[in-house]
């Protein structure tokens, strides 16, 4: 069989990669970048877990420890989680899924990548010249007046990367509105697109607020304008309001794409249409909307008024409802399906379990009197790692395996992929479940040293982290191996629906030989479904 020309083989000069406007190649550029950032952030986490094996703080100094957790947070949030699914899988899949030639603004897409790299390099530079010790939250007046670290450089990096987010969001919104194939109505869109649409709306509306906030921090620090400085009539709490006005919706930027991926996976490997499609679709929009009105739940003990506390607690319970709806619908989708357990499905099931635990622990934090006790403890650390690592990273790996044949034209080794999925699940729980217990016992977060009675749980957590580190490194090897030695993939190895599977793997540069037309609802497995089910 002669190898058809595809986007990977078209022109392989470095120049053609760095100046590409092909969404698929931009996605690959993002893959490489965020993988590097993931392992840098992971290395910081490894050192943190190693330090916390003993209560005395004997591995590194307090200043180094503070820089490590700040770097871990900043890198993982802005240079891995936020771009993870949208910029890589989204970039690659969105145009294919809607039957388009490319995103609406291909050059803007490449610009996003360069902005992302510029922001990332600036932040890395800040780390290499001495680091930043404010935590990823940059609370004032510590960040503006008291910190002796490279705050301005670090916020500049995040500021620049923010524009990359905004442009990506804008690109997706316009693409989904304008470039859908004939017949692909809104209610025929795969749920991955609904999720990315909701994500993009948040990216466009919330990120500018972060940019303004960080700019004010930089100005306050460099020129002493005093916006957040109480001795000049400023207000340090104002910073928290502005910061969380972005950063809580940012949590949904990080989880909504994961929910989208999981909807695809559950449907594909259950050979069934998603139960309650419209409810799942609109719940993504509801999360994006209501998510803008819950930021104050980060501030129940910060000195905001009791009334504000009540309102934000109430809204936080409300925003949990659409997430619950999704979980129930995914479960109902499996009812009377033909379920197979390829690695992506294992990741999807892992996602549901871990996300649900993360979400339920969120109720403890939304609940005012209990939050007063566990906020700023390890309970919060465990909670958001269940959502972002247990949820988002698991979904990212699920999506990566699912679309791997499409992206590379090769099948990944199933045995290894399943082993990694299972190892990640157990390593993750062993790392982060003990942190719930630490929180309930009252152990504060961001502590370099700690009272000895907490040690046993820290040792357990660190042991889990070493398993998790191996588990996260595994895909690097077997996916890397499959690039060269993996079995060649057909156009539709999963026998599933969706336009992206109707073009060869890997797709040609222009995506489709003939422009596709859509006549059916998504996840229509009535013809295809059983075929694979009976083969298996």
């Amino acid at each position, binding site marked *: 069989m002669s190898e058809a020309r595809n986007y990977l083989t078209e022109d392989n000069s470095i120049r053609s990669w760095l100046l590409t406007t092909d969404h698929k190649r931009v996605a690959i550029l993002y893959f490489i970048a965020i993988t590097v950032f993931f392992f840098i952030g992971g290395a910081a986490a490894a050192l943190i877990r190693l330090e916390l094996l003993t209560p005395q703080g004997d591995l590194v100094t*307090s*200043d180094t420890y*503070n820089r490590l957790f700040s770097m871990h947070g900043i890198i993982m949030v802005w240079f891995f989680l936020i771009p993870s699914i949208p910029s890589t899988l989204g970039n690659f899949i969105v145009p294919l899924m809607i039957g388009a030639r490319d995103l609406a603004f291909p050059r803007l897409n490449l610009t996003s990548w360069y902005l992302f790299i510029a922001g990332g390099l600036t932040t890395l530079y800040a780390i290499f010249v001495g680091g930043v*010790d404010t*935590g990823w939250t940059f*609370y004032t007046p*510590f960040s503006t*007046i*008291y910190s002796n670290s490279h705050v301005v450089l670090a916020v500049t990096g995040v500021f620049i990367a923010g524009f990359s987010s905004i442009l990506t969001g804008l690109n997706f919104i316009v693409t989904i509105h304008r470039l859908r194939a004939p017949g692909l109505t809104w209610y025929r869109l795969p749920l991955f697109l609904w999720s990315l649409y909701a994500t993009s709306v948040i990216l466009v509306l919330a990120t500018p607020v972060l940019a303004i906030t960080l700019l004010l921090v930089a100005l306050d620090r460099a020129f002493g304008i005093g916006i957040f400085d*109480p001795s000049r009539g400023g*207000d*340090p709490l104002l910073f928290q309001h502005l910061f969380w006005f972005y950063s809580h919706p940012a949590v949904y930027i990080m989880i909504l794409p994961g929910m989208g991926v999981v909807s695809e996976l559950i449907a594909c490997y259950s050979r069934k249409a998603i*139960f309650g499609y419209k*409810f799942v679709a609109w719940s993504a929009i509801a999360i994006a909307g209501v998510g803008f009105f819950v930021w104050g739940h980060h501030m129940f*003990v*910060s*000195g905001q008024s*009791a009334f504000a506390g*009540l309102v934000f*607690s*109430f809204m936080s319970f*409300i925003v*949990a*409802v659409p997430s*619950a*709806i999704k979980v129930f*619908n995914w*479960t*109902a989708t*499996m*009812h*009377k*399906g*033909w*379920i*197979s357990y390829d690695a992506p499905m294992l990741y999807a*099931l892992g996602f*549901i379990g871990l996300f*649900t635990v993360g979400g*339920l622990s969120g*109720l*403890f934090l939304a*609940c*005012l*009197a*209990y939050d*007063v*006790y566990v906020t*700023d403890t390890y309970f919060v650390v465990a909670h958001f790692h269940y959502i972002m690592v247990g949820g988002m990273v698991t979904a990212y790996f699920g999506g990566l395996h699912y679309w791997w044949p499409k992206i590379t034209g090769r099948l990944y080794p199933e045995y290894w992929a399943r082993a990694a999925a299972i190892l990640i699940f157990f390593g993750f729980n062993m790392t982060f479940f003990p942190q719930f217990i630490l929180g*309930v*016992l*009252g152990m*504060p*977060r*961001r502590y*370099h*040293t*700690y*009272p000895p009675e907490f040690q046993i749980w820290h040792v357990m957590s660190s042991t889990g982290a070493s398993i998790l580190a191996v588990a996260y490194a595994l895909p690097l090897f077997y996916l890397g191996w499959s690039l060269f030695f993996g079995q060649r993939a057909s156009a539709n190895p999963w026998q599933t629906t969706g336009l992206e599977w109707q073009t060869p793997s890997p797709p040609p540069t222009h995506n489709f030989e003939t422009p596709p037309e859509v006549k059916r609802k998504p996840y229509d497995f009535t013809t295809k479904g059983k075929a694979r089910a009976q083969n*298996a």
Partner: protein
Amino acid sequence: MNNWIEHANPLVPSGETAHAGSVDLLFDGLLASALLVLLLLFFLLLRFAIHYRVGNTNADRDHRIQKSWRLETAWTAATLVAFLALFVWGARLYLNLYDAPAGAETIYVIGKQWMWQVQHLGGQREINELHVAADHTVRLIMSSQDVIHSFFVPAFRVKRDVLPGTSEEIWFRPRKPGVFHLFCAEYCGTDHSRMTGRIVVMPQPDFAQWLVRQDVDGTLAAQGASLFRQFGCGGCHGSGATVRSPPLEGLYGKRVPLADGTTQIADERYLRDSILRPRAQIVAGYEPLMPSFEGKISEEEIIKIVAYLKSLGGEGAKP
């Protein structure tokens, strides 16, 4: 009252106040709801995952549920109702924290990088320790000299951020003697993890003796009175003043009419704000003449002067 909770929850450090007992009960409620949902979900997931696996061709897959809106409405409504109940439960307890019982003993706390400084009304000072009497309500008035800190006592299940430029309050009533952790819970720089201390709860007679044993240069109010003279406050606020200024005698706890038409209760926060930012809240009928003392006066000095002003009598002040 909630004594049994301590035994019901071997995991949690025992709650040492009535409020802590209620918080633990809330935890049990939250945990029970979460486990219920989790067990139901995992049961269904496992059951479907096993029963409807591809290999089981015998499973009945006919008559799939087509219309979903009934189920959707049912589980959305059930979730909403459960969430509302939890919201109300947590909110009622939270409002408790804003409502210190009358007759509480006031103690001042200053957070600074990286220590807790405590000032008793009698003039006793402590660093990283706070001695209190069992079965007595304590009300802390807290401010920060630099960055944001957070006063966290796990055994009492209370926590409150301590901010620069304003004062925050927290209260508790320990049930029995003991020694408990005090943590700073808001990241505050290099030695954040060493900004810890002890809360020492003593039987009332022991506590009274402890107070007497400390070296004291006069009560907090007496120290405040001398600062009042030192800063020249008497020049305008004293009896022989040439400038017309609001009277300070009996001010504490009173409603003060402001120039903008609103009224403000003269509590601790109002008094300190008036020293630091006198032009923000002008008393009705007076010229805005007072200069700001921002940057000229330390947190400790503010506390002493406020204690002195409170000692001048007023509806909320204790003799």
